[in-house]
Each structure stands twice: as C-alpha cells, then as structure tokens.
C-alpha cells in the first residue's frame, strides 16, 4: 500500500481512532482534555504514522515502531511545552507512566485498521473497532471545536463534556456500525447515517451538548464518509 491518498487516509483513521481512545480514557480517569491538547496530539500522531507509512511502509514492524514512537514524541512535546491548562488546577497526563496506556491505544488503533485491510478472519470485528473509534473522535471534536468557535476558555471547555456524554457518543457511533454490519442493503450507509443522526438528536440533548439539526446533519455526513473511507481502504488491499 504505497499510494499517497491511501496512506494519508490510513494515517488519518489511525490518528483519529487513537485520539478517540485517548479522549475516552481522559474522561474515564478525570484528566483534563480540550481542543488545544487534542489538536497537537492529532497532528503529532498523524505525522508519525503518515511519514513512517509513506517513506517506509505499512507492516507489523512499522506498526509496532509507530505505536511506540508516536506517543513518545508527544510525551516529549508535552514535558517541554507550556501547558494550556493550569497544572495546579487540572489533572494532566504528563507523567511518564501515561506513555504505556498511550502506546496500548496506538497499538489498538493501528492494528485494528491494519488487520482489517490485510486479514480475512475477524474482519467485521476490526471494522467495528476502527469505524466506531473514528466516529467517536469526529463526534467529540465537533463539540470541542464548537466550544472554541464560541470563544469558551479552554479551562471551562475542559469541564463541559463528561464521561457520560462521551459514552452516549460512543453508543451513537456503535449504533451506526452495528446497522452496517447486520443490514444487507445497498442503502445501508444512508440508513445507518440517518438512524445515528436521529439518535444523536434525541440522546445528546444536555445543556452543553445540544447540537440540534446541524449536529445531526454532521453525524449523517461523517457516518457515510468514515464507512466509505474504511471500506475503500479494505477493498484496495483485499
């Protein structure tokens, strides 16, 4: 797999999946997460995977190297950069031992997509992991960007999404993926997008997250885009 666009999409999906796991981990462990942090992490993880995939390749060995190197370089960034949140008030994940869960998350993100592309067995499981995590990341990023556009301070925005909200978004993503997996119809992407858009309209109706119709349209679009992208990546190498 050496085509530039395929490598770009592969790296993007891996970076998004890893960040979804990371954001979920932050909400679960009550460590602060906000758009400035996620944007840097997304950039560094994406660049690490993209450059390794483009100039060396996509393989088991490259996956292991990228899974260790990506989080390591981000940890290096984090200990030298000034935190955008006050370390005295917010709990941040800058200690060295946080590197290990990040490596594990990177491993899950990389190999779920890599095995979806290269293996024949358990293809549906790998598809489920990759697409659910990518959708979750795009969903969470939507709200983080919305807070940023509304000029809400990072310190306030970090408290506006809680673990239960992230779980609801995870369930919305999961609904879409399960529909794709069980429904055998040429319109299944559109149906999955529509159902998850309706579900998000009714489930995400808290004060901070009320996305309204715009968010539902966004969900419909990303569900179709993500499924199409992952399917294309899988088909090319099958």
């Amino acid at each position, binding site marked *: 797999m050496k085509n530039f666009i395929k490598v770009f999409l592969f790296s993007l999906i891996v970076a998004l999946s890893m960040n979804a796991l990371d954001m979920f981990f932050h909400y679960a462990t009550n460590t602060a997460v906000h758009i400035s942090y996620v944007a840097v992490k997304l950039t*560094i993880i994406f*660049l690490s995977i993209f*450059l*390794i995939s483009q100039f060396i390749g996509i393989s088991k060995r490259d996956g292991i190297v990228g899974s260790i190197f990506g989080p390591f*370089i*981000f940890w290096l960034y984090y200990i*030298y950069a000034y935190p955008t949140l006050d370390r005295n008030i917010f709990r941040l994940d800058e200690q060295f031992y946080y590197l290990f869960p990040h490596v594990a998350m990177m491993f899950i993100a990389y190999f779920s997509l890599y095995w979806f592309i290269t293996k024949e067995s358990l293809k549906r499981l790998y598809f489920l992991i990759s697409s659910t995590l990518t959708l979750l990341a795009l969903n969470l990023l939507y709200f983080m960007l919305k807070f940023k556009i509304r000029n809400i301070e990072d310190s306030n925005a970090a408290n506006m999404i809680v673990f239960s909200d992230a779980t609801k978004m995870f369930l919305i993503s999961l609904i879409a993926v399960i529909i794709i997996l069980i429904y055998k119809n040429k319109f299944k992407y559109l149906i999955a997008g529509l159902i998850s858009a309706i579900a998000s309209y009714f489930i995400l109706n808290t004060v901070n997250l009320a996305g309204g119709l715009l968010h539902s349209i966004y969900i419909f679009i990303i569900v179709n885009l993500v499924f199409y992208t992952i399917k294309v990546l899988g088909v090319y190498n099958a």
Partner: protein
Amino acid sequence: MPKKEWFIGIIALIIGSFYHFIPYNTLRSYNLALSLGHNAHVIIGSIFLILAFVSFYRLYIYKNI
C-alpha cells in the same frame, strides 16, 4: 540512497533539537524566535524530530533488511 537519509536525518535532528530543547528565552535573546510562541517552537521541533527519526529508521531498514 543512504546519503540522502543521513543528510535529512542529521539536519532535521539539529533543527528539531534546537527548537525543541533550547529554552524559549535563549532563542528570543538571539532573535531566533521567528515571532512565534514557545509552544509553536516545541511543535516545530517535534515535527523535525519525527522527520529525523523516519530518516534514521529508513536507513536502518536499508542496512539490515
């Protein structure tokens, strides 16, 4: 071919380490801050360090596999 990897790797490692590890105030005092904030310097440094790593990793692949 390995000459290119050595060249890119060493240059990227020097630039990356320079912007990543040298304190911001030191860079500013020598007019090397490029009108950027501290965090922007660190991310530029990180990007160059990634580039350096990929160059040396590619070199390792050429030599060993």
